[in-house]
């Protein structure tokens, strides 16, 4: 039965819209920090968090106890908290005899648990009776209509039907469904990990699964009759329509229903979303799958499982469910209470008995008793809590003097307050953070220098650079700048020995230029061949090697494991000595001339032909002459028949020779069409001189470095080292797409040292003196070592100064490691380690495979500063700030500021929000404890042996000893520029404008000319003063 086209398309669009709140899941090989509520960013922050709570069941704010602890530690500004409370009180009606501000402040700061858990049975009158000790006067009747409505909301709503059945009948359809679906997903999405792969994957997720499930023994044993559902339609849309029609859900609620279905396994759904949109993903192209397939599989399985349970009294569709709740309200209520775990303990056995027997008279009997008991219990509990609260506020006696109306008003106020308290705490925490930032700012105008600094260093804006920059400036005459980690040069790199291209740029950009890493000890042609050769070589080895290897050298692996565990540092050093050091390489980044490209192509084809002849025909090397190869190549390319002479040289019959040449054309791709493709790809290699000059100029201007260049300009990319860490890409440079920034640094340095490039720049007005040498370097953020790369490219005249540079870098590294190690050692060790111990500890962290936390990474990030370094030079920001250098004076058209806002700031916001949500609810938004993680399919992790793909950051990254280490607050951005300049730039970038207006980031503008500070708050820009002790005034409803 086929579906009408319009219905089919409509379902597809509904699924697309339903899947939007679910964030993408990038394969963890290139971990991308992103906002888990990215799909909800068009809503204001508070609303998005509420919607996230409804969808993902994730908390948006920390529990009150944690905030109270922060308050004690001085991380929250008490004054601004009080101001927030007062603003809230101003919006509520007063309660006679109760000083609301004082009481609410007490509630906030001294009462550990929230007061207002929703009371099901007890009303305000009952609480009033309880407070006055007259509990027996509580009413005993229940408004059944109201109860029915309440049940509808809790159970019915837009929840999937099987979820409602689970809630009311204690079945486990949900977990079984998840398990079956995850197993199917693991089979389908496997990326080369298993030996036996799922058959039929090329036809797509739904079709492949459909074929298998008809013969699935596991399903058969469970008695799940899936064939009947699958027989209804052969397309996923058809199955979806059938299931939804069977469940009789009205079409207006479908999109919502789909959303809730998909959210159950939001890791997998996010992965499928990403995969169906990724344009060049090999596995996605060969084995297509999209959300519609996934949802069809889920709905089909869900209906099959539901049908198993559906019986005389178990509803199997939406109308049946609604009818059950209406007709048997008492039973439904008892069931709900029992299976949700909220049942009154003393009556639990009775309720279970009544519910299982199903006898209506027993049920109504138990219901009456239960309701009475529950009402009394709830009223008592709430009264006790109110009393305790009143005692804390030293005014408990006021409670008993309240009338019922006044008590009602008080309870409503408390409920509204506790809903809004998260924002109050957050704003107060941000107020304190802003104070810390603004306290040490240096707003004095820049003093012109008399001589140029010894060296200038460009670091990534990453928060970890803040520490090393500070130390470097401290130990010598160094000037540092912050620039996005890919230095404004988006490239695709083909590394030596690798067969595929890696994108080294932010996730939202696609690089247009390719850069090759070449072996420096040989001419250009050979090393390109080397890449292909190496790839073929590896392929041959990888199939056979493991089988033989385990038998022969299995013992060595045991040795390896012992060494790694007992003495990780010494062992890793020793192992490195066994393997040869990486060869000297050079980067090819100039555009190839036509003849060059042609010559490379010819050389590659020749090499492939030689290999083919060796492999297929087994001729010895001396018989494979250049002439023979040339003839073969021409024959293959020009589509001719091979000549007799050729056949003779190959010692083959004509037919065999023909077959061989055809094989060359098809399998080895020595043909015209492929040559053209390869030629085009070769054309992607490199940058023209103009492009190089443009990129360099843009990079330098964006950070404001346009004159007074030092002898050394260091371009420091960063990367990390860790063992046995599925999150290792999260510690690398986000601006480089989760890779190390080493190649971008080398590329820009090589470009900048070319005289031709400098000449073009000089024509544009940017004069770089001849004695300036750009040096690429790598900052290893785990060990804090800074290694200079491409040392052989440094001109001889600079070598005499290299010693001083080395010493400076080493000193800065050690001081930085010392500062950082103090945060990594357990908090109860007394004295922080000294410099030597810190260095050793840092090195050990990088090579210890049992270390769950090799470094803190970007935890505790809080600020994003766009301005000159001098602004923050005096402030010790403890590795919490993204520092992007910017000089507004060289950016009259605001283009550079806009590019910083649309790129680095967005990435910074993603990182900040990822950390925020992983901290406030590590189980839902984060990925939980690393110790339980298992890598799944090589692209994600699961907890335990079967679970949803875990998204977000693990507990070890954001928590320390169970308490948050990262302080969750929204990114506090400070732009140093004239107000109108900054404001126009913000308005000009739609993404940032939306983020600021919806309250996802806090925006401050410091006008250097007027020295005024502007803050965007409550939908408008407000000017505030810049005194020493800085206090903000929030009004409680942001």
């Amino acid at each position, binding site marked *: 039965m086929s579906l009408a086209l319009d219905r089919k398309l409509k379902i597809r669009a509904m699924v697309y819209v339903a899947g939007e709140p679910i964030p993408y899941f990038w394969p963890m090989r290139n971990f991308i920090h992103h906002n888990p509520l990215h799909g909800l960013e068009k809503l204001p922050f508070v609303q998005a968090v509420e919607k996230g709570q409804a969808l993902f069941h994730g908390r948006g704010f920390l529990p009150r106890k944690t905030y109270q602890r922060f308050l004690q530690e001085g991380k929250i500004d008490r004054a601004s908290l009080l101001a927030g409370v007062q603003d809230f009180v101003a919006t509520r009606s007063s309660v006679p005899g109760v000083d609301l501000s004082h009481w609410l402040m007490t509630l906030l700061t001294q009462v550990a648990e929230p007061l207002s858990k929703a009371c099901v049975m007890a009303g305000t009158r009952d609480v009033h009776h309880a407070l006055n000790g007259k509990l027996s006067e509580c009413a005993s009747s229940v408004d059944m209509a109201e109860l029915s409505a309440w049940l509808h909301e809790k159970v019915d709503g837009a929840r999937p039907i099987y979820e409602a059945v689970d809630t009311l009948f204690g079945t486990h359809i949900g977990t079984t469904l998840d398990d079956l679906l995850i197993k199917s997903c693991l089979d389908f999405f496997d990326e080369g990990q298993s030996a036996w792969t799922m058959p039929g994957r090329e036809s797509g997720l739904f079709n492949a699964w459909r074929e298998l499930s008809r013969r699935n023994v596991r399903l058969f044993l469970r008695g799940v009759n899936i064939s009947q559902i699958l027989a209804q339609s052969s397309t996923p849309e058809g199955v979806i329509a059938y299931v939804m029609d069977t469940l009789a859900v009205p079409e207006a609620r479908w999109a919502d229903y789909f959303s809730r279905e998909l959210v159950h396994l939001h890791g997998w759904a996010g992965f499928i979303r990403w995969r169906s949109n990724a344009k060049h993903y090999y596995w996605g192209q060969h084995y297509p799958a999209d959300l519609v397939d996934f949802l069809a599989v889920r709905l089909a399985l869900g209906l099959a499982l539901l049908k198993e349970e559906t019986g005389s009294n178990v509803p199997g569709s939406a109308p049946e469910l609604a009818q059950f709740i209406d007709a048997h309200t008492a039973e439904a209520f008892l069931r709900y209470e029992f299976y949700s775990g909220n049942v009154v*303990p003393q009556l*639990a056995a009775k309720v*279970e008995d009544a519910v299982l027997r199903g006898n209506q008279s027993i049920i109504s009997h138990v219901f009456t008793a239960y309701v009475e008991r529950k009402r009394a219990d709830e009223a008592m509990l709430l009264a006790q809590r109110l009393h305790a609260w009143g005692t804390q506020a030293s005014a408990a006696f006021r409670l008993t003097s309240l009338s019922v109306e006044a008590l009602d008003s008080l309870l409503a106020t408390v409920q509204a307050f506790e809903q809004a308290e998260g924002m109050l705490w957050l704003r107060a925490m941000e107020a304190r953070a802003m104070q810390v930032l603004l306290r040490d700012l240096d707003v004095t105008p820049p003093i012109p220098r008399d001589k140029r600094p010894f060296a200038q260093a460009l670091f990534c804006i990453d928060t970890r650079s803040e520490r090393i920059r500070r130390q470097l400036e401290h130990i010598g005459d160094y000037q540092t700048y912050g620039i996005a980690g890919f230095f404004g040069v988006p490239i695709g790199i083909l590394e030596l020995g690798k067969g595929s291209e890696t994108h080294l740029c932010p996730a939202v950009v696609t690089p247009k230029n390719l850069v090759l890493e070449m072996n420096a000890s040989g001419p250009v042609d050979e090393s390109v061949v080397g890449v292909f050769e190496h790839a073929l070589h590896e392929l041959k080895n990888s199939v056979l090697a493991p089988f033989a290897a385990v038998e022969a050298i299995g013992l060595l692996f045991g040795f390896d494991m012992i060494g790694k565990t007992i003495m990780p540092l010494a062992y890793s050093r020793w192992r490195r000595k066994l393997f040869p050091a990486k060869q000297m390489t050079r980067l090819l980044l100039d555009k190839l001339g036509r003849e060059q490209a042609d010559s490379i192509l010819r050389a590659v084809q020749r090499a492939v032909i030689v290999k083919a002849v060796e492999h297929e025909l087994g001729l010895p090397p001396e018989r494979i002459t250049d002439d023979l190869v040339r003839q073969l190549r021409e024959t293959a390319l020009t589509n001719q028949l091979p000549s007799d002479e050729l056949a003779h040289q190959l010692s083959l019959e004509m037919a065999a020779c023909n077959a061989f040449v055809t094989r060359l054309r098809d399998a080895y791709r020595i043909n015209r069409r492929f040559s053209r493709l390869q030629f085009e790809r070769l054309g992607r290699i490199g940058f023209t001189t103009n492009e190089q000059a443009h990129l360099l100029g843009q990079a330098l201007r964006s950070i404001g470095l346009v004159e007074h260049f030092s002898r050394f300009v260091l371009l420091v990319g960063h990367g990390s080292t860790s063992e046995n860490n599925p999150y290792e890409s999260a510690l690398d440079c986000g601006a480089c797409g989760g890779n190390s920034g080493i190649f971008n640094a080398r590329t820009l340095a090589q470009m900048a040292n070319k005289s031709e490039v400098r000449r073009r720049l000089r024509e544009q007005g940017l004069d770089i003196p001849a004695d300036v040498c750009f040096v690429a370097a790598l900052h290893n953020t785990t060990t804090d070592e800074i290694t200079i790369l491409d040392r052989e490219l440094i001109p001889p005249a600079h070598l005499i100064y290299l010693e001083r540079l080395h010493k400076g870098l080493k000193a800065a590294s050690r001081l930085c490691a010392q500062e950082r190690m103090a945060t990594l050692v357990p908090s109860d060790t007394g004295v922080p380690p000294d410099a030597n111990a810190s260095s050793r500890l840092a090195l050990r962290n990088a090579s210890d495979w049992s270390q769950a936390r090799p470094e803190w990474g970007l935890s505790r990030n809080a600020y994003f500063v766009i301005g000159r370094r001098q602004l923050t030079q005096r402030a010790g920001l403890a590795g919490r700030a993204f520092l992007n250098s910017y000089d507004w004076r060289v950016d009259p058209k605001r283009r550079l500021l806009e590019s910083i806002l649309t790129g680095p700031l967005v990435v910074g916001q993603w990182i900040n929000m990822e950390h925020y949500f992983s901290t406030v609810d590590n189980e839902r938004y984060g990925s939980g404890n690393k110790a339980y993680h298992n890598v799944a399919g090589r692209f994600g992790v699961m907890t335990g042996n079967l679970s949803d793909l875990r998204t977000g950051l693990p507990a070890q990254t954001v928590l320390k000893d169970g308490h948050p280490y990262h302080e969750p607050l929204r990114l506090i951005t400070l732009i140093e520029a004239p107000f109108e300049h900054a404001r126009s730039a913000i308005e000009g970038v739609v993404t940032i404008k939306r983020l600021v207006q919806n309250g996802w980031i806090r925006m401050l503008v410091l006008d250097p000319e007027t020295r005024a500070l502007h803050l965007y708050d409550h939908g408008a820009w407000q000017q505030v003063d810049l005194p020493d002790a800085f206090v903000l005034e929030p009004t409680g409803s942001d």
Partner: protein
Amino acid sequence: MAILSLLAIGIFLPLFPLSMVWTAFFKYVPWAWLRALILLAWPQIGLTIAFSTHAQLPQWAAGWGLLTAALYALRMLTLRDFSTWIAFIAASAFALLWIGLVNGNSEAVLRFQGLGFSASFIIAAAVVPMLKNRLGAAYGGLHCGMVQRLPRLAGVLVLAVLAATATPLFPSFFALMAVLSEASFMTAVGVLMVWLLWSWAAVRLLQGFLPGVWSRAQTPPDLSLRTTWLSGLGLVTLAGAATVLSSMGFTGGW
């Protein structure tokens, strides 16, 4: 006459469907000390009736007893209420006494078996008020995560449940060994199946209390150190006494 005495014994050494008397009675007794007394006395009363009337007990009674034991053991698997659980395991264990009774064991041995079972169940019953006072009810599934918040109580609960399900070296273990030693091969297999079901039920019960994340707002106070030591001491003493007594030959063939 024989029928009447059979029926009478069948109430006190529970045979289905007379065992329903036992379970109902146990459920409705309110005081903990009275329950302990009943647990001790019930099988002894049955044995007294059996030996005083010198009743000729039919062979099928042993098989019926085993079936009753298996039935209650099976039923225990889905029980969440701890008191009812104890009643059921008691029914199951006391029913096993029929095997020895029909095979003509000596009175002393049988009484020892009965005592052995009772002693272990009394320990379990003693934990019930501890749970009730703190959690409101001794009901599994409502308060997960006891290991985190109430570790001492969790420990005592585990030991109590283990004691009830005939774990060495608690008294019920020796009692069960005594039952096994007198049984024929098939009967022994049946008894072992019942024992297996007991331990499965024990795990399921503990599953409702110990693992998981504590989700309630308040955490009740844990057992005091004194109570914990006393309980521990009590358990050890009991185990010691059982070992000593059994080695003195009260377990029949062992």
